């Protein structure tokens, strides 16, 4: 097979990070090439470079032996490279055909208007050619996730994409849908489309790909024929050897349980049971879509549960909404601080006080002085870097914003703190400060549930770790007995 695409010594720098360091990669005609690596390994940056979203700082891309320079996504598109991102880019109120040809609608020569007849005819032909079972008149919002993905694929094929890049295409699919998708991918390959397949799920990768490339910290560690490597070897390559030795052992906490979850189930999670002990940091590891966030939202009452029970401080309780959870001294630092955690229009003082305003009320009025004192206490306690408590949170750094959210729950006297991806989108220094804050909280006998996509972080801060895969708990470990290798195995569906 001839080499279709070649990436030579691609380097990409972001402020403070070397995201890609002289990456070499090739794709043969009709090949399915998997790209694997832990979070932050550089997979996304690499595909964004291929798609013309990022301009590389060094190196080049060759297509069929010709050097290419992609300045915009359109350049890549014209050369036949299509990317299907995890977040679809469809218009939910338009139908399938209109989505496929959006912005590329054929214009009738006679009337200079859109020739809708041709749009639907072409869409029909395209779908038939690639055996995609879709109704061209169906509205996107009425389709399942898998069907929407087919529309994305059809859209890519509509401009004759030769290379299809799929980013975690199975993350939100059911098992049957995954099978369907694999059939489609096989079929595409037979019809001459080459595919770069990015996934965390090693069982899928080993099943479908011809070759695979492992990225770690922005460099290629290995490119191999899939059949010739074992899953264990892949995991080893993804994780690296050295990190485990750098991580200190955390002590085993043996105190009374403060939170006991039994057989919790809803549409996203199945039969989740675990306990959290006083003064403990419990890490939850899992891929995006493994049900970590959903599990925590269920405990916090933000999503409803269909089955299971929750015990807080030895007492069974029914949590029907965030209000109940808060009164049971549970606090949630949500996944996206800007969308769910903070009031960007308000200052630090009010953000910290918001959950527990009644603490500062005398005669129906808020005692601003008491409120400010409390805020200042939390600013000291959590080492929030700000000139005053009156400073708008909008102007704080990501790490300090997260600390404000933490402060909010401490002000509300929460003893159980659920931290959902607290380190996402904050820089290295701020991460360290968040870790220190978590350690300090545990010392003050608060119990912390720590969720992160970065396995290394989970292993560093936790006393105990739970792994999740597709909405279920797949393992529970004392931190000192756990290695990154093992953790990677359990969150990618191994047993």
């Amino acid at each position, binding site marked *: 097979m001839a080499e279709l695409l070649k990436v030579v010594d691609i380097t990409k720098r972001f402020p403070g990070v070397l995201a890609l360091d002289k990456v070499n990669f090739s794709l043969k005609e009709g090949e399915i090439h998997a790209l694997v690596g832990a979070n932050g390994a550089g997979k996304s940056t690499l595909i964004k470079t291929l798609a013309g979203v990022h301009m590389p700082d060094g190196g080049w891309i060759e297509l069929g032996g010709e050097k290419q320079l992609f300045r915009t996504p359109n350049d890549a598109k014209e050369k036949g490279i299509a990317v299907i991102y995890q977040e679809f880019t469809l218009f939910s109120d338009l139908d399938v055909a209109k989505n496929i040809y959006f912005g590329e609608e054929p214009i009738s020569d006679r009337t200079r208007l859109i020739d809708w007849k041709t749009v639907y005819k072409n869409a029909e032909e395209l779908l038939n050619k690639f055996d995609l079972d879709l109704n061209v008149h169906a509205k996107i919002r009425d389709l399942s996730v898998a069907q929407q993905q087919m529309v994305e694929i059809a859209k890519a094929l509509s401009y004759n994409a030769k290379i299809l890049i799929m980013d975690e295409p199975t993350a939100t699919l059911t098992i049957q849908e995954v099978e369907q998708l694999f059939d489609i991918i096989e079929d595409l390959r037979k019809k001459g489309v080459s595919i770069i397949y990015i996934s965390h799920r090693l069982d899928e990768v080993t099943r479908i790909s011809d070759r695979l490339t492992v990225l770690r910290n922005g460099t290629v560690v290995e490119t191999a024929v899939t059949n010739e490597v074992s899953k264990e070897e892949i995991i080893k390559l993804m994780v690296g050897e050295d990190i485990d030795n750098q991580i200190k052992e955390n002590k085993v906490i043996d105190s009374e349980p403060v939170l006991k979850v039994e057989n919790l189930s809803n549409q996203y999670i199945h039969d989740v049971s675990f306990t959290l002990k006083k003064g403990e940091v419990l890490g939850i590891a899992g891929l995006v879509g493994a049900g970590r966030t959903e599990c925590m939202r269920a405990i916090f009452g933000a999503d409803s549960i269909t089955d299971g029970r929750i015990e807080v401080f030895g007492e069974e309780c029914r949590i029907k909404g965030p209000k109940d959870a808060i009164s049971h001294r549970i606090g949630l630092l*949500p996944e996206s601080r800007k969308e769910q*955690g903070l*009031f960007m*229009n308000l200052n630090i003082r009010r953000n910290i006080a*918001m*959950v527990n305003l009644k603490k500062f009320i005398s005669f*129906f009025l*808020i005692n601003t002085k008491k409120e400010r004192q409390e805020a200042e206490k939390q600013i000291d306690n959590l080492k929030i870097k700000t000139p005053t408590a*009156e400073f708008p949170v909008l102007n704080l750094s990501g790490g300090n914003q997260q600390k404000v959210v933490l402060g*909010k729950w401490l002000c509300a006297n929460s003893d159980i703190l659920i931290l959902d991806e607290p380190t996402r989108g904050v820089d290295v220094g701020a991460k360290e400060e968040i870790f220190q804050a978590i350690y300090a909280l545990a010392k003050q006998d608060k119990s912390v549930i720590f969720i992160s996509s970065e396995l290394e972080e989970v292993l560093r801060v936790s006393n105990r770790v739970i792994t999740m895969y597709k909405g279920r708990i797949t393992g529970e470990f004392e931190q000192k007995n756990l290695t990154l290798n093992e953790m990677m195995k359990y969150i990618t569906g191994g047993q």
Partner: protein
Amino acid sequence: MKGPENKRKIKLLKQREFIAFAALIIIFMAFSLASENFFTLFNVMNIFRQASINAIIAVGMTFVIISGGIDLSVGAIVSLSGVMAAMVMGNWGMNSVVGVLCGLIVGIVIGFINGFVITKGGVPPIIATVASMTIAKGLALVLTGGRSVTNLPDSFSVIGRGNIGALPIPVFIIIITYVFGYVLLKKTRFGATVFGIGGNEEAARLAGTSVEWVKIRVYMFCGAMSAISGLIMASRLNSGQPLAGDGLDLNAIAAVVIGGASVNGGVGGVVGSLIGALLMSVLTNGFDLIGMGRYYQMIFTGIVLILAVTLQKKTR
């Protein structure tokens, strides 16, 4: 400790309110130069009196807009509450206290319905309040048969035309409603929650606040303020007129926005809204005094609105 104290004083007129305040002063001075009748005690009181109806609605509208909503029914509430009070007094011979109470209840009930439809029914505020505006307007016309309701007791006319010392009663009511509104917005849990909801509704929900109930109360408060304006209006006209409040909705929204509130919610304040309402009133009054026709005035008021909001965006 001197720093924070000073800062707090400056904060009284925050940047976003400052533009409106500066505009108010400049326009005020311009009219003072243009007409010798402008800057007199009598005329200044007159400006306040004219501003009262819009200003008092604007207090309520401030809450609605900060919470991320909009209320287009306030004009219809002004009409219906005025008509209701007038009928209770003029047609059924009840005294002014009963009349005033009935007017207020009308406003609060329509506000409740607005809030209920918006939160429980999931109807966008603009649609819900356009609907209730139409209904209230229709009701006012049906009840009166399209005619004004007269024969009001003398004690009622005090509201719109009486004085306490040198202070016209409507101006007195402005002061009361604004002090009340200021404290409610800045110093109570309710007010804090209104800012929270407007800034980030999901975060407010996850903070355990009852978002829906707070919103309902916001619209009830706005309805009550509109009803107060309706009573002042009816008192000044000495009659209940079914179309008295037409167009007041957009004036109130304009006042609040000129005062620095964001229609996206989460930002705003009653002090700014008062400045906005005064600014609009100064324009009308000043243009009248220099003899500019009402039709031209509308054009200029529109231009001022655009300028004020553009300037705020630029300086933010």
